[in-house]
């Protein structure tokens, strides 16, 4: 390739702020690899996983697999030896489900709210982000009344995004509908397609949830997610 065409290609990549993934890291620039969710199909959809240093969200209808996905992320994080935090204003986390998913419970920091003060929970997320100790922070907004979400100032998410930037942590919101995401974050929408059953008769078991996942900002097709 000639020098002129190389120069043109480099300028094009710089304009898009994307450099070849196989290229050597730029001196002085810290390139953070995405945080794997522990589910290969979701990692493929997101281009490797959740972006670090960004506010992302997973939202969808009931029984669409939001919580299972977030716990898989926490499992992947804690199994790798890092710390995960689960801020739970509505106190809905089931430790047995977390353990069954593979979460190392000794490396999961759980804050249990009383369903009334989302502002306190957001403040706790800011404290945890600022400590720099946690690689994954999940703020579970599912089940909170809409009035509680509306009472929270919109600038809260901007403030959390600014705190997350430059850090290696991934901040994930779990919600029933779109709440917020950072400029480099992802918004993953899950649509429930129904439960999956195994066996018949008295031995019948719920063995998974079928859902369709779609990631905004990324030009990818929706895919089926089976948990």
């Amino acid at each position, binding site marked *: 390739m000639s020098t002129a065409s190389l120069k043109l290609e480099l300028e094009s990549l710089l304009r898009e702020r994307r450099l070849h993934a196989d290229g050597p890291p730029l001196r002085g620039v810290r390139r953070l690899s995405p945080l794997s969710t522990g589910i290969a199909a979701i990692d493929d959809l997101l281009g490797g996983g959740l972006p670090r240093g960004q506010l992302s969200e997973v939202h969808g209808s009931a029984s669409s697999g939001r919580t299972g996905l977030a716990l898989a992320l926490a499992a992947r994080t804690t199994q790798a030896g*890092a*710390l995960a935090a689960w801020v739970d204003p509505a106190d809905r986390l089931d430790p047995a489900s977390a353990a069954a998913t593979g979460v190392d419970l000794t490396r999961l920091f759980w804050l249990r709210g009383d369903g009334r003060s989302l502002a306190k929970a957001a403040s706790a997320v800011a404290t945890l982000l600022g*400590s720099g100790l946690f690689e994954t922070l999940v703020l579970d907004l599912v089940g909170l009344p809409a009035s509680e979400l509306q009472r929270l100032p919109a600038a809260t998410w901007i403030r959390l995004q600014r705190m997350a930037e430059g850090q290696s942590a991934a901040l994930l919101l779990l919600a029933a509908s779109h709440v917020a995401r950072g400029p480099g974050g992802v918004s993953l929408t899950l649509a429930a397609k129904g439960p999956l059953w195994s066996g018949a008769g008295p031995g019948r078991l719920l063995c998974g949830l079928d859902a369709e996942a779609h990631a905004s900002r990324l030009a990818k097709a929706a895919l089926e997610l089976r948990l």
Partner: protein
Amino acid sequence: MLLDLHGLDRAWSEPERLGQALLAAARARQVEAQVALAHSRVAALVLARVRPGLTIVPAGAEAACLAPLPLALLELEPEQLALLRRWGLATFGDLAALPAPGLAERLGPAGPRLRRLARGEDGQPLVPTPAPEAFESTLELDWPVDGLEPLSFLLARASEPLSERLKARGRRAAALSLELRLVDGAFHRRSLKLAAPSGEPRTWRTLLLLDLETHPPHDAVGAITIRAEPTPARDVQFSLLDPAQPSPEALAETLGRLHDWTAAGRAGSPALVDSHRPGAFVVASFVPGRPARPAAANPRPALRAFRPPLPAQVALRAERPVFVAAPGVRGAVLDCAGPWRASGDWWDTAWSREEWDVAVASGVYRIFRDRLRDEWFLEGELD
């Protein structure tokens, strides 16, 4: 009172003079004393009890001095004393004359030990018990201080020497107590249990200030006292293969900032209880251990629990749920799996339940029937 006089022979070359000096010192304090100087602890204690005035036992003469004394002076268990009397033993000399193997056969390890004591031989060296060291630092202020900002500087000044003393003893602080003497004479006392032992004065200052922000003193401060509850410093062996572990000080500071959550018991690590009772868990202090051997993650539907479970009305047909109504959930059952029956704790607070996973239009839920009360509940959503 037992005194270890080893090493005093340079100052007191004659035991007689040392003994007389001890008696004189006791008389000067209006104390009637009996003094015995011996080369063994048991001989000195026993002879001081029975002989008035000053008794000096030459080295090697302990057994002979103790021989005529009654066995009751040897601190025996009542059963042991009764047994020895049945054997016809009355004095120290009688017991000392018995063969050690024979005593061991009849009394076990206690037999030879008692024989040594009867001969005036100590079984173990004298080891003094040191008084517990108090780790405390007090700062008297030249003028009263009002407000947290000046207090912050003073807390640092009070913390640093305390931290140095702890480090010199190989200790860290497991808990801190702060006592502020106020201008009106009252005391403002606060206690902090640290999430992780810390020896850093900056961390102490931050945690104490965070606590004082929510519990400020009602008046200006005239003196500051900080006390630390010591705990042995933890040796940490890092590994080149494991990811970096969080700094205990950073973790303690972060948990201190979340004091509202941790103090209410609403923050920590979930820990499953060894029980078959569904939903049995505790929230333990957040102390990340060493990373366990990595295992494959197992993505699966997770339960979003309702605490407490919501009362539900369930219609059955052919003993299978066909309609569920509960706060926030209502609809015909499209499909289900169950029943799964479990029970336990019959010796304590018995429980017995029948679980179903049901799919309604709005989602998939877990319901259960309390078989003891014959009531239905919505346990949670599967998501």
